């Protein structure tokens, strides 16, 4: 009886296993991070340092040493209340992300000046100044369905007035533990198109997606979306094929 109890309880905490494995597959094998450079910054709505989606793990798997991977609420504490409809603006993202680097010193006891280590990557970025940060990226990873893990990456534009992204540079990748992809993802209300053949890695299926206007067949068609959109419009959905 106790054996059965222990067997069941130990199996219960494997719920995050798929997310962990999908993150490894995504960051080790995907092409979506090719343009990301050292000291860039990621801003992510589902980022959590307590789990695997953090700057440290990203560096290990991709070799790209981000200045940091922030949770959106760290940069915009009132993000949930700041709605597009209410004309609320998410301003000065570059300034805010750089300023917040100084909060990344570890621990809860402030260090004295002579205790701060010069080899610390955070201190290096702070001392290098705000211009060292080349690109700030909107990035996210989360479960679209229990068996499909989705990720997007898109650069923010240099805009002090509101946080907007270059939607036409969007990159999306899904990782699924199913033998075939179950749904086509949609972002900001636009159905995405599969880009190339699915790749299989450690039993997971990885698929890259792109916006429809990049499709040669539709190259001359009217743009069905703005090339620049508000960051808050980056909401995922599912397309019925």
């Amino acid at each position, binding site marked *: 009886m*106790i054996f059965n*109890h*222990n*067997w069941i*309880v130990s199996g219960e905490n494997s719920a995050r296993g798929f997310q962990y494995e999908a993150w490894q597959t995504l960051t080790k094998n995907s092409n979506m991070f090719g343009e990301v450079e050292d000291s860039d910054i990621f801003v992510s709505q589902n980022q959590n340092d307590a789990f695997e989606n953090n700057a440290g793990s990203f560096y290990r798997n991709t070799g790209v040493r*981000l200045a940091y991977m922030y949770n959106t609420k760290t940069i915009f504490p009132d993000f949930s209340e700041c709605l597009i409809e209410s004309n609320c603006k998410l301003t000065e993202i570059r300034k805010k992300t750089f300023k917040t680097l100084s909060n990344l010193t570890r621990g809860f006891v402030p260090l004295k000046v002579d205790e701060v280590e010069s080899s610390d990557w955070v201190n290096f970025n702070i001392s290098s100044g705000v211009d060292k940060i080349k690109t700030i990226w909107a990035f996210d990873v989360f479960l679209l369905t229990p068996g499909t893990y989705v990720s997007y990456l898109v650069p923010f534009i240099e805009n002090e007035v509101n946080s907007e992204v270059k939607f036409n540079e969007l990159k999306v990748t899904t990782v699924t533990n199913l033998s075939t992809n179950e749904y086509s993802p949609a972002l900001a209300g636009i159905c995405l198109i599969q880009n190339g053949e699915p790749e299989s890695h450690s039993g997971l299926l990885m698929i890259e997606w792109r916006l429809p206007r990049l499709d040669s067949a539709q190259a001359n068609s009217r743009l069905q979306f703005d090339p620049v959109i508000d960051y808050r419009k980056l909401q995922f959905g599912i397309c019925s094929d």
Partner: protein
Amino acid sequence: MKIPLYKRLKVLISKKYNEVGLGISTAYVGFTIIWAFNISTIYRSYWAGDDWPNSQTPYWIEWRFGELNNSNIWSEAMFWNDQWMRGAGRFYPFSWIESRFIFSYFQELWQYKTYQFTLLFIAGILFVYVCYLLSKSHLLCIIILASLSLTVQFRRDFDPHLAFSAMLPSLLIKIMISIIFAFRSGKCNGSMGGIIWSLLAGVFYFSAMSTYEFGFLLFPMLFIAFVVGIQQNAKLNADLSKKSYSKYLLISTRFYPIFLSWIGYAIFVFGYLRPKALEVSGAYVIDFSLSSFRVIFSQIFSGIPLISFRRIDFNFSFTTILVLAILLLVATISLRNLFNEIQKKSNTENLISNKSQKNKTLEVLIIVFALNMIFAPGFMMSIQPVWWEQAHFTKSYLGVMITEFGTSLFIAIILRALIIRNTIRVTIHAKKKS
């Protein structure tokens, strides 16, 4: 001519085997297998609790300092130890050192789970060995080994078996080693030898407290081991009269190193670090109220078999049924061999022998030893106001592993008494008949 180590080991094992007998040896092996099987379910688990962020340690070190090497791992461990010392007045550097190195070197899940399994397995075996040293009873130890597989239950909230960097098994191993040394200190004939054993016990005990402060409350176990060691010291017993016995215990310089490590830790943590701490909050605030008694009471039972069961735990799969059938077979063979041995012994040895005062004292000491383990975790929680409204029979904290070990000893004491009483009754009945 020098005899090779393996040959010496072979001789030693066969000597011990002859001493112990087939029945008892089989029971030990059988219940060790069951113990290993029961905790091998650890392998089914994923990163859990604090292990999630802690498992990211090597990546953070690489990201922050550019390289993962021993020096960076060490400075990371020392950084956090320093933060908790200055911030919350806590001192547990061994936990930081162990966890930072473990997660840095065992990055694959299976490697870390093997580490968890190994530590818990060793903690269980060492506990049985310690109980043997104190009691010299194979029967008691075999029942403890069997009971461990019943009392050690994985928890759905704060679980020390599957998570938290194997801090609790690590603490228990150090405590058990220090108990063995404390026992040797008491048993050793030469006073210099006794002090050296005591010094070693003090060092290990200090490292145990520096793994998790909780070890502080387990001091009585070391004292009991020392006293039992003295009881088993033939020379000392011959020299000391009954009256001077307790006086000897009080002034024995042998015990000083252990005592000093205990007091030294208390002064350092409670007298120096905590008053100076900048941010003692949440679970680290210490207080006492009437609710504390309720918390202690609720935790006493947390090691009882099936206490953390839920309805879902009755869902058996084919695999678990198969494993259970095998374990049942192993348990049956083990128990049959054990009882045959007991029966044999009861014919050759006098189980009814008049118990000396010393034996009775020993029994009381072992009961206190078990109660220390059962009560200490609840006491710790009872002085933390955050637990006053939360603690429940089924809701416990990391110390529950210590209660589980203590409960297995307590169950073994009761079962052993019942078995002996029953065997005596059967023997007398058989003798009367013949």
